[in-house]
């Protein structure tokens, strides 16, 4: 027989409440001329956050995350470079003796310093960036706030710069303790590493944002990161390489940073004018930023 379920009563009660809420703004109200009327409204308060505020807000998130994971990254970014210093600089250096007129330890310190900055900048720009698009979708969360692509990228790069500069500072202290620094110009090496960080992190961030699976990262590590680290003048002068390989080595951002840092810690002039090395790194940085901005914009505001 016809049974009215009890749930029906509840439903009609809720619906009555809904109707009352709707009564505040009558349903039959016409919208004639709505667009012009809206356009005539006084201008509203602008976004209350400028580009600097956006950048710092994004940086704050990264630092909040880093506070939870820094122990895991401390080995690769702080301790491993020091182990390299001990093994290569003191262990191998004991056999090599001098290179280009200086003890091998002093010669290799700026190389290891640059390599460490290079690897942090590169590795940190792979999975974390892909993750914030694909898994945590944090960039999508930020994209619906007033923070735009410029703020996201600047905050992200600033975070990487802080990570790299901190790691470099720790390395410098250890290197100084072992007599690895010759010239007071060593104090400019964090600035060189800052430029290197942007030159490497920006294009890799663009790549990580553009690709949909992480197999590209394995290629990047094998065919860009490892060869760069081995053959860009970190462990031996690029002049030892065949001509074609020399040209390739000099095309890497890492070689330019190594040259600048070696010039600084040894107090000698670099291979090219300082401005030329910096300009080359700047090209990588600017091109990488532009590319990343395009990819981020496409993915977040498509």
């Amino acid at each position, binding site marked *: *027989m*016809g*049974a*009215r*379920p009890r749930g*029906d009563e509840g*439903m*009609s009660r*809720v*619906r009555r409440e*809904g*109707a009352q*809420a*709707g009564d*505040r*703004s009558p*349903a039959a*109200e016409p*919208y004639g001329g*709505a*667009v012009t*009327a*809206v*356009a005539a*409204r006084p201008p*509203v308060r*602008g*976004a*209350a*956050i*400028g580009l600097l*505020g*956006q950048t*710092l*807000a*994004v940086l*704050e*998130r990264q630092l*909040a*995350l880093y506070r*939870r*994971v820094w122990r895991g990254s401390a080995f690769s970014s702080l301790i491993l470079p020091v182990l390299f210093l001990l093994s290569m600089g003191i262990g191998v250096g004991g056999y090599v003796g001098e290179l280009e007129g200086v003890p091998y330890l002093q010669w290799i310190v700026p190389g290891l310093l640059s390599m460490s900055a290079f690897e942090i900048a590169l590795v940190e720009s792979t999975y974390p960036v892909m993750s914030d698009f694909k898994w*945590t*979708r*944090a960039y*999508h*969360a*930020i*994209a*619906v*706030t*007033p*923070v*735009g692509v410029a703020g996201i990228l600047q905050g992200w790069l600033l975070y990487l710069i802080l990570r790299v500069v901190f790691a470099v500072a720790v390395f410098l202290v250890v290197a100084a303790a072992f007599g690895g620094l010759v010239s007071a110009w060593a104090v400019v090496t964090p600035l060189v590493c800052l430029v290197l960080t942007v030159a490497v992190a920006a294009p890799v961030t663009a790549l990580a944002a553009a690709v949909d699976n992480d197999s590209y990262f394995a290629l990047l590590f094998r065919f860009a990161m490892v060869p760069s680290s081995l053959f860009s003048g970190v462990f031996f002068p690029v002049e030892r390489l065949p001509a074609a390989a020399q040209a390739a080595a000099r095309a890497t951002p890492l070689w330019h940073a190594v040259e600048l840092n070696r010039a600084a810690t040894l107090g000698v002039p670099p291979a090219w004018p300082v401005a030329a090395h910096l300009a080359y790194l700047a090209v990588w940085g600017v091109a990488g930023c532009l590319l990343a901005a395009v990819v981020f914009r496409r993915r*977040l*505001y*498509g």
Partner: protein
Amino acid sequence: MGYGRGVVGEQPLIYAEGLVKRFGDFVAVDGIDFQVRAGEAFGFLGPNGAGKSSTMRMIGCVSPPSGGVLRILGMDPVRQGAQIRARLGVCPQLDTLDQDLTVRENLITYARYFGIPRREARRRADALLEFVQLADRAGGKVEPLSGGMKRRLTIARALVNEPDIVLLDEPTTGLDPQARHLVWERLFQLKRQGTTLVLTTHYMDEAEQLCDRLVVMDGGRIVAEGSPRTLIETYCPAEVLELRFADGTPEEYADKLAGVGERLDPLPDRLLVYTGDGDAALAEVQRRGLIPSATLVRRATLEDVFLHLTGRTLVE
């Protein structure tokens, strides 16, 4: 908590006319008109692929319209996207919480994207965690929270900038019944405080519970518009008599019941009789000598309207 400053009086907060979104050759939103007024709860109802989420992304200023007019808070979403976004709260369909941060940190870091000072961000985070009943989880990580808790946290996050409009894209999809009711109850509180809500859903009960007014979308177009009540009144008689029979198909019985009620809708498992008076229709069924194995007289719901308007095959 005073969410929703009703700033615009009688003007619509959102105005769309001939709004279109294309992805290549595919037309996701095919020229729709709607307005959302301050303080109302407005719903986009429709099957998957109807264009609801594309519309929401355009309103959220993360997807530029391909054509037509769209004004949000009187501004142009393409030229003034950041200014509009500063005054929107967005609860996306997929969770975008920072799993490795604590519940409270998620709100504070998010508040900072709106330029809210730290101290104020902390104050709002605590107040909002009370509001969504997550205060006891404030210091815990997000990762172990249940789906319903994460959704409530996302809603809290969407309120951190005290938005003029809150956009909710399928706010309860994937939640169990208890969690859904808790989310509805919080959204209802927001509505009572005068917050303007814009939501998409493919749940009829959600639309009936929450929406003052809604549009039904299908294939990128709006096929009906009104309050849940007027939609039901317009497209359905007041009551539905559901009949099940032990033998024979509902279609055979539909022939025998021709003329009973205003419309007959044979489903694979039962026969629906749309009628102004369910008990009278049932009496007529019995007078014709038919003995159903089960009967139910119920009020017509938005689901009946939805199925009538968008067809049964589209709901897959």
